[in-house]
């Protein structure tokens, strides 16, 4: 399959596909981080995770409209405002959902799965009624357009770079939150022994709500970042939910590093395969491999062996 290409071309192909893979990787990481917090730390399956992401995207879309209509001179920085707002709005919705629904279902994970699926249908319909069934896109600020030529055959788009930087930044932020903040300590304590955590004075109810909110907020930021590289429709969230869950499970639930490693391997495999096979076959092959490996090693890539 390589015979038709020269050495230089092959390098360029791998570099470009590798880069496309890196963008996909960033997208996966952004999507999966929120889920890794919610699923990994709380054991809750949130099937509406994709819809929380889309909410972040719609918030960004609204903010970009407001800026271009009323604050055109600040348009180049609207994205940062939008991202913060996306975090707050989706986070708040997440906390509300936790209060209204999730907290009643902690002992019934399979039921949570069905209930959040119901929530995802409702959100989809609300998006469709409010924003219309068609996809909407945002205007990217000028500084994010175009691409950087690295060599004469390899070019990297700036918006892609931006999403990558964002993914790295948010990963670091979550890592710090998780392992350096009081909240992170409480979350991990609850994950290991809920009753004991309650007994030593951690407000488990509030921590759960906050954790779910932060997980959803991160999803919102992911959605916000999406608008830089693609358009948004009411059902777009559903397209990603399987990939996202596989990324988290493949990485080993509870391990942030695992999530990132698995996002990296899945995205690279898929984008490199995509060049040689059709897009759908590349995806089938990648997902099948992941499922196959999960059948052989259900605990995922990174997991501790614990005394029962």
């Amino acid at each position: 399959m390589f015979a038709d290409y020269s050495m230089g071309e092959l390098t360029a192909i791998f570099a470009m596909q590798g880069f496309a893979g890196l963008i996909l990787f960033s997208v996966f990481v952004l999507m999966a981080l929120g889920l890794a917090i919610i699923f990994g730390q709380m054991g809750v399956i949130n099937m509406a995770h994709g819809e929380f992401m889309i909410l972040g995207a719609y918030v960004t879309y609204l903010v970009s409209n407001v800026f271009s209509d009323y604050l055109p001179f600040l348009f180049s920085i609207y994205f940062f405002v939008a991202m913060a707002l996306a975090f707050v709005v989706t986070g708040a919705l997440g906390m509300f959902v936790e209060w209204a629904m999730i907290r009643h279902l902690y002992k019934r994970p399979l039921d949570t799965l069905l209930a959040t699926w119901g929530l995802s249908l409702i959100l989809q319909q609300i998006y469709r009624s409010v924003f219309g069934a068609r996809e909407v896109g945002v205007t990217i600020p000028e500084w994010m357009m175009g691409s950087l030529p690295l060599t004469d055959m390899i070019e990297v788009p700036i918006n892609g770079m931006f999403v990558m930087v964002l993914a790295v930044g948010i990963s670091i932020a979550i890592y710090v939150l998780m392992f350096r903040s009081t909240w992170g300590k409480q979350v991990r304590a609850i994950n290991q022994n809920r009753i004991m955590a309650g007994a030593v004075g951690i407000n488990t109810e509030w921590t759960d709500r906050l954790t779910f909110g932060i997980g959803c907020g991160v999803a919102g930021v992911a959605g916000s970042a999406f608008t830089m590289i693609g358009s948004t429709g009411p059902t777009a969230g559903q397209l990603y939910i399987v990939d996202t869950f596989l990324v988290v499970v493949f990485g080993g639930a509870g391990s942030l590093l695992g999530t990132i490693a698995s996002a990296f391997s899945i995205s690279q495999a898929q984008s490199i395969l995509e060049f040689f096979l059709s897009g759908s076959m590349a995806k089938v092959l990648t997902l099948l491999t992941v499922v196959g490996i999960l059948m052989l090693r259900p605990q995922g890539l990174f997991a501790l062996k614990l005394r029962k």
Partner: protein
Amino acid sequence: MVQNNPNFVLMVEDLTVSFDGFKAVNDLSFYVEPNECRVIIGPNGAGKTTVLDLICGRTKATGGSVNFKGQELLNMREDQIVHAGVGRKFQTPSVYEDLTVFENLELSYPKGHNVFGALFFRRDDTVKDRIQEIAEMIFLEELLQEKAAFLSHGQKQWLEIGMLLIQDPELLMLDEPVAGMSVAERKKTAELLNRIIADRSVIVIEHDMGFVADIATRVTVLHQGKVLSEGSMERVQNDPKVIEVYLGH
């Protein structure tokens, strides 16, 4: 100690398990004779429950050997170990709450244990009589049609013991059978156990020293995954090492 005595029912040798480097059970060896009642005692975290888990296949050992009547148990599945003749009772009573006492006992009846056997299992008179017999033994004959969820804590413990008895295992392992029981229930249980252990080997984990003295043939004291002392109740009770780590406080 005689290492190759063919009269031992169970020979545990150099048994080791490590959880990410932490050795919960470390080079442990002990031997159980037919009709012996062996009580394992030791402070919390000594590895008592882990030893039972290793023998019955719930936890996979890192090394060593568990030989039961000439069969190596370490590479067998849990259900195969049960069929070989080892029964296990858990620390917290684990019965099927949604099923009746009768159904609980019926599921443990040693017949129809594969998929099609279970599909075409007939509840014939032999089965019913045996369940009746066991139910009388465990003081539950009046409650056969009651859902297990409605039993008291002590009754659930008895039911689980009954579920083991109906299997008629040659080696019975009981993890704290009287924990959480009232004084009256405790007495009844001691009486029940004394009847049960007559014709089989038993390993019991227990903290209640009075109860241990009642039933034990020999006592093994575990500490940090190793045997600290072994012998008759009297000998163990007077062993200065045991007094220091366990009985002293």
